[in-house]
């Protein structure tokens, strides 16, 4: 490049432009603004804990830890115990997972390993994601009018065959724990599928090639190489969906029957903390609100523990390849 002879020294070529104070102010101001917006998350989270805790204080002082173990929920007499709801929350979400985990992980294996053409795999993946997008209130509506009448004969048969066990001892009559568990399966299975699918897709191709290279069968490779490599992310995803299942409100509320009486039977109506809140919060006042807030606090602690455990598992148990 020919140099312009009229420019003699570097000072003439490069003029240092000083940034005007307004520009600097804008820059730092923008940083502080984004910092403030990021802190909003912390404020909201702490705000939720504080609001629920403060409102629950009265009930905590009055009922203490017996709130967790007694099952007498009587707003008339102002005695409250949340055992029915806590039991229902744990049983419904855990049993839903027992069904949803094999379904979800199996589906994920089916659409990540090279079993069927790519287009079919992607279509199944898309459909599972659309299932996850359906609003829970629509699933609840479907559960009331379609699912529950459809499975009633099966539940009757279960009662007929296994009625001697406490878990099927009541005659199924409409809403109950069993249809609620099934609708929870529909809701958490897509989550497990898509997280497991991502986890399986991230297993390095070399591991697969190595397994097939030493002559294993497809499922030999899946069970001894691919699944172990992806297990931490899958377990993390399962924990996340457990948190979802415990906090799921609408579909469960619409189909579980919202009974305040304790029953071991899965065919009888039950309750969960979330559906207790959805049902009673609107008409509650005084100590009942506080008791409901106490129940909400328990739900928050449960989901918090499960979510933190999920994050810990993903971080700590991941295999290093």
């Amino acid at each position: 490049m020919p140099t312009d002879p009229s420019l003699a020294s570097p000072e003439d070529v490069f003029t240092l432009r000083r940034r005007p104070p307004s520009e600097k102010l804008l820059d730092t101001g923008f940083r502080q603004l984004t910092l403030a917006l990021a802190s909003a998350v912390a404020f909201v989270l702490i705000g939720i804990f504080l609001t629920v805790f403060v409102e629950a204080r009265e009930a905590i002082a009055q009922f203490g830890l017996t709130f967790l173990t007694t099952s007498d929920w009587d707003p008339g007499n102002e005695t409250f115990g949340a055992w029915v709801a806590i039991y229902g929350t744990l049983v419904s979400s855990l049993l839903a997972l027992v069904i949803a985990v094999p379904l979800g992980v199996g589906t994920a294996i089916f659409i990540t390993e090279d079993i069927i053409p790519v287009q079919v795999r992607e279509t199944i993946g898309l459909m599972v994601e659309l299932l996850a997008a359906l609003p829970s209130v629509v699933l609840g509506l479907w559960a009331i009018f379609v699912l529950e009448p459809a499975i009633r004969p099966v539940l009757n048969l279960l009662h007929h065959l296994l009625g001697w066990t406490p878990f099927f001892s009541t005659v199924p009559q409409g809403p109950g724990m069993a249809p609620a568990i099934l609708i929870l399966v529909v809701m958490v299975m897509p989550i497990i599928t898509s997280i497991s699918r991502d986890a399986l897709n991230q297993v390095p191709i070399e591991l697969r090639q190595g397994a097939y290279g030493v002559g294993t069968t497809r499922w030999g490779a899946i069970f001894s190489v691919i699944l172990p490599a992806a297990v931490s992310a899958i377990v993390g995803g399962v924990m996340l969906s457990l948190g979802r299942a415990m906090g799921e409100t609408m579909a469960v509320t619409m189909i579980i029957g919202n009974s305040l009486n304790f029953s071991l039977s899965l065919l009888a109506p039950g309750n969960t903390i979330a559906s207790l809140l959805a049902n009673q919060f609107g008409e509650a006042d005084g100590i009942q609100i506080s008791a409901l807030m106490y129940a909400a606090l328990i739900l928050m602690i449960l989901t918090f523990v499960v979510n933190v455990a999920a994050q810990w598992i993903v971080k700590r148990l991941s295999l290093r390849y």
Partner: protein
Amino acid sequence: MANPAPKSISYANTDLFDRRPLFFDGTLKRNQLNLLLTGIAALFASIAVLPLFLVLGHVLVKGGSLFSWALLTELPPAPGLSGGGIGNAIFGTIVVTLIATLIAVPIGVGGGVFLCEYSRNGWFAQFVRFGNDVLAGVPSIIAGIFIYGLVVATKVFFDQSYSALAGGIALSVLMLPTVIKTTDEGLRLVPQELRWGAYGVGASKFVTVMRITLPAAFTPISTGIVLAVARAAGETAPLIFTALFSPYWPDGLFSPIASMSVLIYNFAIMPYEYQNALAWAASFVLVVMILGANLLSRWITRMAKT
């Protein structure tokens, strides 16, 4: 495969390897097990997609049959009566979701910019990311009672308790984690060279973020926002004690407002057939909107790729 050892190796024809073609022996135990397990996985995959078809089918048949212009524009009838539509609920869902979007998107995108552009690995950013994941796991009903305690019970907005604004705020609590996460992750995908290039020609950090990195990450961020909006539009639990419900057209942002999700919940548990039919019709409209938004987000991604 048991290969009978050749009696004498003919070195003239150097054939050290078994040259017989590979074959698949279906009678082998491992191959049968393989087939069985593949069959089970295929069965599980078909069970997994079955609910989508069943739910969509029922919603289309039961809800679509009631679809008409009156459904979209008229008010719901009094309990037990028939006629009318869900116009106020459709409008209310749009209003409440819009309020939530207007709150959650600026906060979420701003917070995501901080996490990715200003403090990628600082302790505060790590803490915010952790808090964000926890917030994403908070049950939606808890977000509802939080806003109930914060806004509705305290009557901060002009002495009004239940209001459209309260409902919008409750939904924004649910949207916020998704928006922050997608912004943070979307900005991480922007190549570092783009930022260096901008700094190199003398752009300030603010200009770099606004003109270079945010536009470069437009696709993942907008996809995330569309998905978050779609999810919020279908949420019910946060609205039942904040926005409540109203059988009338909305009366400003500071009074209770109808929404499709709460209408479905209320009308589904009513003992009247026409109300149940309206719940199906509202489900139809809601599902069409939500699945439409989901397909839109996919379309955005695909457009950006080509």
